[in-house]
């Protein structure tokens, strides 16, 4: 069995009287890609926000390498190695691609007190940034200002920034959303490449992509886990078909 990195235990999140997540438990292992499926409003984004610390859980536990991190702030979780990307592109639009990633890398080595050195003079950070850019396939656009990138490229940058922080856990919120077929393909390839060294949680609408890359799939409906297991099990599950796949292609958000 692969190494257990991050797990949720009976995690719930209420907004007012409504449960966005109810009693959700799941495990993420190193070298495995765990995909989460579900219709709109199933609580997938809430799940990622709970794991990344953007939202505090109302109940339940989040364990990272055996340690309870439920009360940790997002930045502390990030420094511990939990990196995330956003569904809506969330970058530094006025900076270049390189600076976006360099800044991300800097978060690992704050060096805030060395105010008399140039930020760009730290070779290790620049290397980390360039590596991430390379991995995400953005090398050609290294010095472009982020705001001028195409939508697909911005999604790639989103991933590159997470990679620049050298995380051990990747929480990816619909990285394929709004991408063309070609871009999707290269992203899928990237995900495959990243899987061996990371524990990845992928929230995605694109069925083909999910079944192509996922090692484990969890299906959520109305904030609860409906079923969890290897792709074949999910494909054959009657419950899942009734609740979700039977409805045909889910619409875009």
């Amino acid at each position, binding site marked *: 069995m692969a190494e257990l990195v991050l797990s949720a235990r009976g995690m719930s999140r209420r907004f007012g009287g409504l449960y966005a997540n109810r009693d959700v438990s799941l495990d993420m292992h190193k070298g495995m890609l765990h995909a989460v499926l579900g219709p709109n409003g199933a609580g997938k984004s809430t799940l990622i926000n709970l794991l*990344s610390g*953007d939202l505090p859980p109302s109940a339940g536990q989040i364990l990272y390498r055996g340690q309870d991190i439920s009360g940790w*702030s*997002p*930045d*502390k979780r*990030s*420094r511990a190695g939990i990196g*995330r990307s*956003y569904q809506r592109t*969330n*970058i*530094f*639009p*006025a*900076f270049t691609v390189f*600076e976006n990633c*360099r*800044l*991300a890398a*800097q*978060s*690992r080595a*704050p*060096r*805030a*007190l*060395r*105010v*008399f*050195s*140039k*930020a*760009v003079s*730290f070779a290790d950070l620049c290397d980390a940034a360039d590596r991430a850019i390379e991995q995400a396939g953005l090398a050609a656009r290294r010095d472009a*200002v982020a705001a*001028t990138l195409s939508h697909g490229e911005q999604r790639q940058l989103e991933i590159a*920034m997470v990679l620049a*922080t050298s995380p051990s856990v990747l929480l990816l919120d619909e990285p394929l959303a709004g991408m063309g077929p070609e871009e999707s393909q290269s992203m899928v390839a990237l995900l495959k490449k990243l899987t061996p060294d990371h524990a990845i949680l992928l929230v995605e609408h694109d069925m083909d992509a999910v079944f192509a890359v996922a090692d484990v799939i969890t299906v959520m409906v109305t904030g609860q886990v409906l079923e969890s297991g290897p792709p074949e099990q999910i494909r054959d599950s009657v419950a899942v078909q009734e609740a979700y796949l039977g409805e045909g292609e889910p619409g875009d958000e």
Partner: protein
Amino acid sequence: MPLPARKKRNYLPLVLLVLALFPMFGSGYYNELIAKIMIMTIFAMSLDLLVGFTGLVSFGHAAFFGVAAYSVVLLSPKYDPANLWLVLPAAVFTGAAVAFVVGLFVLRTKGIYFIMVTLAFAQMIYFVFHDTPLGGGSDGAFLNVKPELRIGETVLLDLNEPMQFYYIVLAFLVVAYVFLRVLLRSPLGHALAGIRSNEHRMLSLGFPVFLYKLAGFVTAGGIAGLAGFFSACQYGFVTPEILSWHQSGNVLLMVILGGMGTLNGAAIGAFAFVVLQELFSALTKHWQLLMGAVIVTVVMVLPGGLSSLPQRLKGLLIGGGNRNG
């Protein structure tokens, strides 16, 4: 906004030269005026670090300026000059220390709330000096003898001498400018820029954003303290009004007037503000009406500040251009 690469023209040495030579031609009053503009420039640059570079719109910046000014008066002996190397760091430290304490409170808030809370805290400090006998209450306090720097019996620098005062202020203006430039290209500076651009993402990338903002806030408080030190020394007098919200508003205005996010803009803004005040008050009793009209006009039609003016004019002349300047 990315701009096409254009020939960089650096006017900085020229400005420095003009400032350095100015006292040889100006009269006493204008030397004082220029010294005041330089002090306000230091003050405005410190606020620009927050507003322009970190995205923290502080409406209580006068508090740090004022507290530092008071510290000079309170730390100076009554009838003897204080030691410059003692009171100057003390003033900077006071500004930074107060900014640290205030920052712990106000940096917990964001946006519109941050503006109001900084204002409210500055008012609180204003009332500490206004209502308690600490600094002479609402009447203010006097600095009878200005600080000097001496080694043994020889006086090296004496702030009572207007000429020396002028050049010391100029020197510290350069120091503050260079310090901020260096800071801005350091990792801390880049992180602050990141916070301005996208605070949420900075957090999820793992930056302890609160601490970074606090570092920026304290730095800005310290530099404002430097300006406060010189302000107290220039006129030898402090009153609670120097930390009133009008003062905070004025310095904010300088930053905007010059164009925020450019240290040079702070200088332009400070200069324009002081000169406009000088000009209007010579013109009419109701000069504040003109001042108000200028402020409203700048906000409505010139959001980039005065330093965006040449760009805009160019755009207008050539036609088209980019609309946002």
